[in-house]
């Protein structure tokens, strides 16, 4: 089943000429054709001829012995990465017809490594959301169903919900995501796949549509931990066009998987045992601890005392940056324009028509916290707390190599649930936000199913630029968990 492979397996199959890149691409195009109506994982599917032409070029490189590390591997691209000549919407009416004349650094890196793009995956508008319900192109749906309840559509998580749904359902071998407060890790957990948010600065932000500049980070969403390492190798690297990109060398991440984790110290942050945390989440966490102990890790309790301020701090800083980052969508130079008799009128009409409710909420919040008279009380205070949160991690990492936590406080919920209370929705990010605030790498690994048959993920948080240890621990957890379940809706189902 070509659509059920990992990147690593497919790469080996292509290298051994067991199948061609064209066959692999065709299988995925077929899967998308069958499943996208139900899942709405893709906003834009590339023309078949273009996809197959890319695959043929990959086949030629295999034949010539010049294939790159992602050569011929068909993947989805979150529709937040600008792709040259291919419509890039950010799931917003504002950019519904926007075709960038440039390629983002991350997608350019992937193309250089030989990857074959299938299309642009769905997301919450401008990456703002945790359920992929805030998309101007309709929600993406989780391919997983509650046991005995095939009728209820569940959310795939967000904001990279189209990517997680596509990878889980066999509509792409892997996909790119972006993570600002959990947007890679939480949907990965909800869809039973692997998601890695690298260290801030590891992947260039150039050409990726900005949500919150000090937090946004691109990363891979894959079916295995080794795949996450492989794909990150292709995505990462210094970029002179992004002043915040790191010039550290990019290691061979995939080699970190399978390395012994014996003697590594794993911290369990006490503050993540939030009151009211569902028993199934606690149980899965305990199981993870037991697996790592069995693999030879030393498990120790640690404290991240400012964790409880993480979410509120995040919901000041991220909206503040977004309110400014989204000011460029003014109807003047590109994107949607609604005409009006005055300049202010053009702004009002354009932005009212172009932005969805959640985006407007966040712009308003961000504008408020930056306003004269409120700046000190909100934004400045939040920046100070952010420093304290970073320091929490630095202190913890003096004693441990990684931290182990749940990825999300629940399994995937139904579309329509948690909708009336935005704060309830924001709570989905409670475990993922602190690592974003600190800029440290974090990985979500699927480790089991809950009683309803839905996947749950555990999160491994590492030191700055130490993705390798994170991947090693992730690999150990993956091996112990042996997660091989597939969702109800899947390219291989019924075939």
């Amino acid at each position, binding site marked *: 089943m070509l659509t059920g492979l990992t990147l690593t397996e497919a790469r080996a199959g292509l290298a051994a000429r067991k199948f061609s890149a064209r066959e692999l691409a065709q299988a995925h195009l077929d899967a998308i054709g069958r499943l996208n109506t139900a899942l709405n994982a893709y906003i834009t599917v590339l023309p078949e001829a273009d996809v197959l032409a890319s695959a043929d070029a990959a086949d030629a490189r295999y034949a010539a012995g010049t294939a790159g590390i992602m050569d011929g591997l068909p993947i989805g691209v979150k529709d937040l*990465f*600008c792709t040259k000549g291919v419509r*890039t919407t*950010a799931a917003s009416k504002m*950019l519904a017809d*926007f075709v*960038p*004349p*440039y390629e*983002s650094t991350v997608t350019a890196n992937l193309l250089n490594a030989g990857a074959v793009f299938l299309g642009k995956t769905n997301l919450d508008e401008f990456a703002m959301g945790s359920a992929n319900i805030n998309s101007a192109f309709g929600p993406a749906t989780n391919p997983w169903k509650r046991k005995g309840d095939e009728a209820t559509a569940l959310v795939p998580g967000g904001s990279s919900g189209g990517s997680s749904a596509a990878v889980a359902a066999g509509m792409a071998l892997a996909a790119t995501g972006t993570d600002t407060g959990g947007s890679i890790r939480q949907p990965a957990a909800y869809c039973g796949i692997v998601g890695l948010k690298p260290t801030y600065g590891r992947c260039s*932000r*150039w*050409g*990726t*549509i*900005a949500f*919150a*500049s*000090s937090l946004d980070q691109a990363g891979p969403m894959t079916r295995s931990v080794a795949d996450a390492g492989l794909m990150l190798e292709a995505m990462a690297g210094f970029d*002179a*066009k*992004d*002043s*915040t990109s790191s010039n550290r060398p990019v290691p061979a991440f995939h080699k970190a998987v399978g390395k012994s984790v014996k003697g590594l110290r794993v911290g369990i942050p006490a503050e993540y045992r939030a009151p009211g945390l569902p028993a199934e989440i606690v149980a899965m966490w305990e199981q993870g601890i037991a697996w790592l102990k069995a693999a030879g890790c030393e498990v120790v309790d640690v404290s991240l005392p400012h964790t409880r301020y993480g979410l509120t701090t995040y919901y000041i800083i991220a909206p*503040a*940056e977004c*309110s*400014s980052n*989204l*000011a*460029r969508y*003014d109807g*003047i*130079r*590109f994107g949607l324009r609604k005409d009006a008799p005055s*300049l*202010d009128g053009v*702004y009002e009409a354009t932005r009212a028509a172009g932005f969805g409710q959640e985006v407007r909420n966040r712009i308003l919040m961000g*504008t408020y916290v*930056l*306003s*004269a008279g409120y*700046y000190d009380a909100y*934004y400045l205070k939040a920046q100070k707390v952010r420093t304290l949160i970073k320091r929490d991690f630095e202190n913890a990492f003096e004693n441990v190599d990684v931290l182990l936590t749940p990825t999300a406080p629940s399994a995937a919920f139904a579309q329509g649930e948690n909708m009336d209370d935005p704060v309830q929705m924001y709570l989905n990010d409670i475990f993922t936000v602190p690592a974003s605030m600190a800029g440290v790498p974090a990985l979500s690994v699927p480790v089991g199913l809950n009683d309803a048959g839905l996947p749950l993920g555990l999160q491994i948080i590492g030191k700055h630029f130490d993705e390798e240890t994170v991947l090693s621990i992730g690999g150990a957890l993956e091996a112990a968990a042996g997660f091989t379940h597939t969702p109800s809706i899947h390219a291989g189902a019924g075939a």
Partner: protein
Amino acid sequence: MSYTIEGRTGTWEIVVGLEVHAQVISHSKLFSGASTTFGGDPNTQVSLVDAAFPGMLPVINHECVAQAIRTGLGLNAQINLFSRFDRKNYFYADLPQGYQISQFEHPIVGKGTISIELQNGDVREIGITRLHLEQDAGKLLHDQDPTKSFVDLNRSGVALMEIVSEPDIREPEEAGAYLRKLRQILRYLGTCDGNMEEGSMRADVNVSVRKAGEPFRTRCEIKNVNSIRFVMQAIEVEAARQVEIWENGGEVDQETRLFDPGRGETRTMRSKEDAHDYRYFPDPDLLPLVLEQAWVDELATRLPELPDAKRARFQAEYGIAFYDAGVLIAEQAVADYYEAVARGRDGKLAATWVMGDLFAALNRTSKTIETSPVSADALGKMLDLIADKTINGKIAKEVFEDMVETGESPDAIVEKKGLRQVTDTGAIDAAITAVLEKHPDKLAEYRSGKDKLFGFFVGQVMKETKGKANPAMVNEALKTHLDA
């Protein structure tokens, strides 16, 4: 205090501070690689960053930072090794990002001073509060269509230095002197061309009035005044307006105003209630700007000689007057020209020629020092001809005019026209004899005691030699003949 306003209730003085926006001379913009040449066709010098396309990011231009440091050094100012870029948020059609990247809390340059000279010769120090780097906006064109405005983004993202003075200025004349001096320093440094007509240097003028000894009263800001003359006029009329309000029992509102030179008045542009809330915050796309002291030191050692130092040196080295030195250093190019003429020669004579005949010739031919028909080298050679007595001062004027017209070298002109000074005593004696024979009556008068006629004889001899005789030799020989 020489400038005051006499009101009904007493004497008022004015308090002025200036915010100058100086466009940085650099090949590319502050945060993008787009060109900064003035006058390109609309929207031909715009990168995706300048147009704020989705996902575009700013990257600081090293050269613009160096220019800001040079300027700070030239203003005797503190260079801040740590500075930071902030976003100033507001919506306008000429501002693609919806925010201007500027430096709010931590500017690259701190306190400095400028020394200005007034007409009466007084010298005053005006404090510089700060200098920071920021992006320029684009330009709106309202005259292209009856109902639409057009946007030209060529200027969008060009680096500006905002140079803020302390409220130390007390007279319109001081404001003018400050701007001229600042422009002179910027031009010497090569960090801004100071061209106010093209808008590469613009001034916002903060004006308030008060009675002697009072604390500051409410100020108004007059935006974007585009000539030094208008700045001085705007201060006068705005100060008069404020005095009128206070004396009628009113309150001056803190507001932003525009100067209308046609009507000679200022008008409200934005009241305090309409003032923008710019929501400044550190730009998360950029790291703080951290400078190495060693780099600052290196830039300092390579700084050109600045006007004040050059003026002092010209006085000392070439023995010229303070005033003359001030005229000669006003523009770097003139100073360079003068120095090329004066070096190794009579500095005073060089100054006389440059400020006299050369300036007159440039004026008459509508040329600048850069396009001068007489090169410094040629003028120097001409002074050499005077010094070695090949020509005398009077003939030199004729030679110079020929140089202006033909561009030929002074040697060639002297040869061509046979202007070589006559130093042959025989020829001079012959000329004297001829003159004395022609004027026996005058000779008799002279000899009977009318000494004043000596000058007449000199003139006649010079005429006889077509002006080419060496005047000293004529004097000498004439005395011998007359007293014989």
